[in-house]
C-alpha cells in the first residue's frame, strides 16, 4: 500500500499566517493520489490543513500504524519551519516559538512512527523556511551501522531551503512545491529511462530552479535497495525503448547478478537489431535468456511475448524491410527445444504467423517499388560493382523467404495470399532478372532449394524448370567452383575476377568444397524431368564434390552448430555420373521433425542460418517425403 500525508498550514495562533501552504498541500495531495501519477491509496492517505500538533501526531500514528504493509510512505509539509537548539521543527497551528520541543513537529517525532511501521520506502518533502536544518536531526536519527544493509528502509528527503534560508512563495504556491509538482507532472523533464521517479532525482532537478530564488534545497537519499517508487514517471515511454526498459524491470530473475547479466544481454540484442543484423549472435543471446526461465512455461511464454513485442518495434526501425521477419523467425527458432509444451507451441506458432505477415509486408513493399522501377531490388547503398555479387544472393533470399511464407502460417487465408505473392514474385524475377538468377555462393542452397521445391509443389513447373536450369548452367559455367560461405567482403572482388574468367587458377582459397547447392539441383532434376539435360553437362563438373547434411534430431536445427547427424558426400566422376546416381545413393532412412511446428521452425532456421538445408521439406515438396509433418506441409 502507498500512503501519503500532506500537511499545509496557513493559519497560526502564535506566529504570522501564510497564504499558500494549504494550497500547496492540497495540490500535492490531489496530484499524488491520482492513479496515473503517484497511485497513493486515497482511503489511507490524509490531507491536513492547518492542523494542531496533536492532530498531526494522531494522524501519523493512525495512518502509519493501522495501514498494513506500507510499501511507500510520503510525508509532505508546507508551512513555517524553524531551527531551535540545533533541531528543525515544523510549525503547525498551535506551535509556539518559545516551546518548539513541545509544540512543534520534529523529524524525531516522525521517525518514532517510521521505526515502528517500517515502510519500505519513505519520502519526506518539507517546503518550509530553514528546513535544511533537519539534516542535523537525520544524522542522529538514522543509525549509521544499519545503512546499506539489505532490507534497510529507504529514506529520501527533500527540504526546499537551506537551514538559514527562507522558502519563497507566490500567490499560486511555494517555489519549492511548484517546482516539485512540475517534475511529478512531467512539465519538467528528468528522465525517460525508468518508469518511476525517485525523490532524489526530483530534488536534484529542483535545486537548479530554486537556486534562482536564493534557495538551496537539501537533498538526502538512502535508497540502496529496491527500485524508486515516489511516483510514476510521466515521461517514461516517450522513447521507443520503453518496452525493453519495462521488460528489464520485470525480468523474473531471482539474483541480482543474473539480472544484471540479463540487462546487458537484452540491451546488446536490442541495440543491434536495426543496424548490423547477426542472426547467430541474436539467437545465441536469446537462447541464453530463455534458458534462465525454462523451468516455468508460463514465464517463458510471457517472456517470448514481451521480447517479440519489444524487438518487433525495434526491428521496424531498420531500413531493411526484411529485418522484422528475420527477428521474429530468430525468436521462434530459439523455441525449438520447448515446443513439446502446448503453450509454448502456440506462442511459437503466433510468432511464425507474425513472421509470415512480416515477410508478406516486405514483399508487398518491394512490389510497390518495383512498379516504380524494376531496379528496386538493387541496393540503395551499394550500387555498383559489389552488386554483381550481392544481387544474386539477395534475389535467392527474397524468393526463399517468400517461399517460406507459404509454409509457416497457421492461417489459411494468409497462406493463400502468400502463395499468390510467391507466384507473382517468382514470375517477376524470372522475367526481369533471369541473368541474376545464378549460383554464386553456397549460402544460396537452402533458399533455392525451398523456392524450387515450393514452385514444384504449387504446380509452377515451367518456372521451377527455368530456375533449376539457370542455376545449373551457372554452376557448370564456373566448374562448380562456388564461393565460400564465409568469404569476407574484401575478397569478393577476387572471386568476381575469377568468375569473369573461370579458367584462371590460384583462387582455391575462395572456393567452397563440397557444395550443397548442386545437391539441391540434382535432387530437383528428377521431379522436373531434367535428368537427361543435366546428365549431358555433368562432365563439366568432373571432380566436384557435393553434400547433404542430415541431422539426427531436428530439435537442434536452430543451433549454431549441430552435433551428430551425417554429412553425406558424393563426387561427380567418382560415385555420381548421372543424376539418378544421387537418388540411388540417397540415404533411405532420414530423420524428420516430430511435429508440424518443428517442421516449420526447421524451415525458417535454414533461412536464418543458411549452412543447412531443410531436406525433409524439399523431399516432401518434391513428392518424395514420407514423414507426416513434412507431408502436411506439402499440402
Amino acid at each position: 500500500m502507498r500512503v501519503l500525508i500532506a500537511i499545509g498550514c496557513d493559519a497560526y495562533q502564535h506566529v504570522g499566517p501564510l497564504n499558500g501552504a494549504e494550497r500547496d498541500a492540497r495540490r500535492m495531495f490531489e496530484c499524488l493520489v491520482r492513479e496515473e501519477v503517484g497511485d497513493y491509496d486515497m482511503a489511507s492517505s490524509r490531507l491536513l490543513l492547518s492542523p494542531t500538533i496533536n492532530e498531526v501526531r494522531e494522524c501519523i500514528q493512525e495512518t502509519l500504524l493501522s495501514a498494513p504493509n506500507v510499501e511507500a510512505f510520503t510525508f509532505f509539509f508546507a508551512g513555517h519551519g524553524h531551527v531551535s537548539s540545533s533541531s528543525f521543527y515544523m510549525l503547525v497551528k498551535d506551535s509556539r516559538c518559545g516551546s518548539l520541543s513541545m509544540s512543534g513537529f520534529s523529524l524525531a517525532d516522525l521517525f518514532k512512527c517510521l521505526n515502528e511501521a517500517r515502510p519500505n520506502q519513505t519520502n519526506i518533502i518539507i517546503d518550509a523556511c530553514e528546513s535544511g536544518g533537519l539534516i542535523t536531526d537525520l544524522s542522529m536519527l538514522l543509525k549509521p551501522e544499519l545503512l546499506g544493509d539489505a532490507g534497510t528502509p529507504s529514506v529520501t528527503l527533500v527540504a526546499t531551503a537551506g537551514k538559514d534560508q527562507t522558502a519563497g512563495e507566490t500567490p499560486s504556491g511555494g517555489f519549492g512545491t511548484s517546482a516539485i509538482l512540475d517534475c511529478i507532472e512531467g512539465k519538467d523533464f528528468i528522465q525517460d529511462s525508468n518508469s518511476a521517479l525517485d525523490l532524489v532525482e526530483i530534488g536534484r532537478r529542483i535545486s537548479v530552479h530554486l537556486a534562482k530564488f536564493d534557495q538551496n534545497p537539501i537533498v538526502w537519499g538512502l535508497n540502496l535497495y529496491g527500485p524508486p517508487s515516489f511516483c510514476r514517471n510521466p515521461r517514461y515511454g516517450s522513447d521507443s525503448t520503453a518496452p525493453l526498459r519495462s521488460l528489464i524491470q520485470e525480468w523474473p530473475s531471482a539474483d541480482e547478478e543474473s539480472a544484471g547479466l540479463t540487462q546487458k544481454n537484452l540491451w546488446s540484442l536490442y541495440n543491434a537489431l536495426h543496424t548490423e543484423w547477426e542472426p547467430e549472435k541474436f539467437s545465441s543471446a536469446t537462447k541464453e535468456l530463455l534458458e534462465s526461465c525454462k523451468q516455468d512455461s508460463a514465464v517463458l511464454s510471457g517472456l517470448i511475448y514481451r521480447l517479440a513485442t519489444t524487438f518487433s518495434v525495434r526491428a521496424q526501425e531498420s531500413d531493411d524491410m526484411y529485418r522484422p521477419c528475420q527477428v521474429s523467425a530468430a525468436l521462434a527458432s530459439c523455441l525449438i527445444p520447448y515446443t513439446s509444451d502446448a503453450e509454448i507451441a502456440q506462442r511459437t506458432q503466433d510468432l511464425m504467423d507474425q513472421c509470415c505477415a512480416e515477410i508478406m509486408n516486405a514483399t508487398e513493399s518491394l512490389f510497390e517499388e518495383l512498379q516504380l522501377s524494376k531496379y528496386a531490388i538493387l541496393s540503395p547503398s551499394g550500387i555498383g560493382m559489389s552488386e554483381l555479387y550481392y544481387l544474386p544472393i539477395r534475389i535467392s533470399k527474397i524468393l526463399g523467404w517468400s517461399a517460406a511464407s507459404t509454409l509457416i502460417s497457421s492461417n489459411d487465408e494468409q497462406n493463400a495470399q502468400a502463395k499468390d505473392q510467391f507466384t507473382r514474385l517468382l514470375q517477376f524475377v524470372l522475367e526481369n532478372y533471369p541473368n541474376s538468377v545464378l549460383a554464386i555462393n553456397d549460402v544460396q542452397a537452402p533458399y533455392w532449394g525451398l523456392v524450387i521445391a515450393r514452385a514444384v509443389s504449387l504446380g509452377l513447373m515451367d518456372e521451377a524448370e527455368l530456375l533449376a536450369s539457370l542455376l545449373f548452367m551457372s554452376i557448370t559455367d564456373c566448374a562448380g567452383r562456388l564461393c565460400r560461405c564465409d568469404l569476407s567482403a574484401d575478397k569478393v572482388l577476387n572471386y568476381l575476377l575469377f568468375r569473369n574468367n573461370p579458367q584462371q587458377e590460384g583462387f582455391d582459397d575462395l572456393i567452397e568444397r563440397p557444395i550443397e547447392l548442386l545437391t539441391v539441383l540434382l535432387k530437383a532434376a528428377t521431379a522436373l524431368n531434367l535428368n537427361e539435360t543435366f546428365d549431358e553437362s555433368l562432365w563439366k563438373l568432373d571432380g566436384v564434390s557435393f553434400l547433404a547434411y542430415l541431422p539426427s534430431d531436428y530439435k537442434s536445427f536452430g543451433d549454431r552448430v549441430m552435433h551428430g547427424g551425417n554429412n553425406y558426400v558424393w563426387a561427380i566422376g567418382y560415385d555420381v555420373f548421372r543424376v539418378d546416381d544421387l537418388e540411388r545413393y540417397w540415404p533411405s532412412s532420414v530423420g524428420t521433425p516430430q511435429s508440424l511446428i518443428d517442421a516449420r521452425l526447421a524451415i525458417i532456421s535454414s533461412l536464418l542460418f543458411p549452412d543447412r538445408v531443410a531436406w525433409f521439406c524439399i523431399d516432401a515438396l518434391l513428392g518424395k517425403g514420407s514423414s507426416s509433418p513434412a507431408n502436411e506441409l506439402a499440402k
Partner: protein
Amino acid sequence: MDGKEKRRSYFDEPEASREFHSSFYKFLDALYKRSVGQYIPSQNLQSLKHGGEFSHPGAPQAFISGMREHRTEFSIKHQQIIDHDLSVIPKAIESVLDQMRKSFAQTMYSTISDSCELSGNVVDAKAEGSAPAAFLKMLETIEFTADKDGNVRLPQMHMGPVAFETFIAQMKEIPPDMEARIEAIKAEKIKKAQETEESRKARFLRYGDSE
C-alpha cells in the same frame, strides 16, 4: 536532415558493400602505383600527410609545382548489373587506370615544362636547325646530378615513337666533331656533377666517417 526520404532496402548489406568498394580502391591503387613507377622511381615518391603545398624554406630556389587534382570516373548501368555482366569489372579497371595514367603523364610533363620555362632551360629544336644540334644545346644547358656514391645518371629523354625514330636516325649521321663535342660536354658535366656532390657532402662534418 535533408528532407529526402530514405529508400527502403531488401536484404541489403551496406557494410559489406563498403568493404567491397574499399578493397576495389586498394586494388586500383596498387595497379596505379605500379603504373606511375614507370615514370618516377618509387624512392622518389613522397606523400603528404595533411593539406597545403610543399614549401622549401631552406631552398627558395626549389620549384614548386603546386597541387594538381587527378580525377577519374566510370559508370556501370543498372541493366549491366542485373544482366550480371562481369566484363564491366575489367573494363572499369582498365578505364580508370588509363585515365589516371594519362592524367598523371600530362601533369608530369606540364610540371617539367613549367619548371624549365622558369629556369630558362628551354631548347627550341626548330631554331637549332636539327635534332642533333638541339640535343647538343640541351646537353650544354642542363646540369647532371650525381648520387651519394658519385655515380652520375645521364638525363632521360621522353619522346613520341615517331620523333624517337627520327632522332635516332639523325644521331647516327652526326659528324665526328659534333660527336666529340657531345662527349666532351658529357665528360665535363659528369665531372662537374661529381664535384658538386663532393662539395655538398663537404658541408657535413666528417661525411662518411663513422669512427
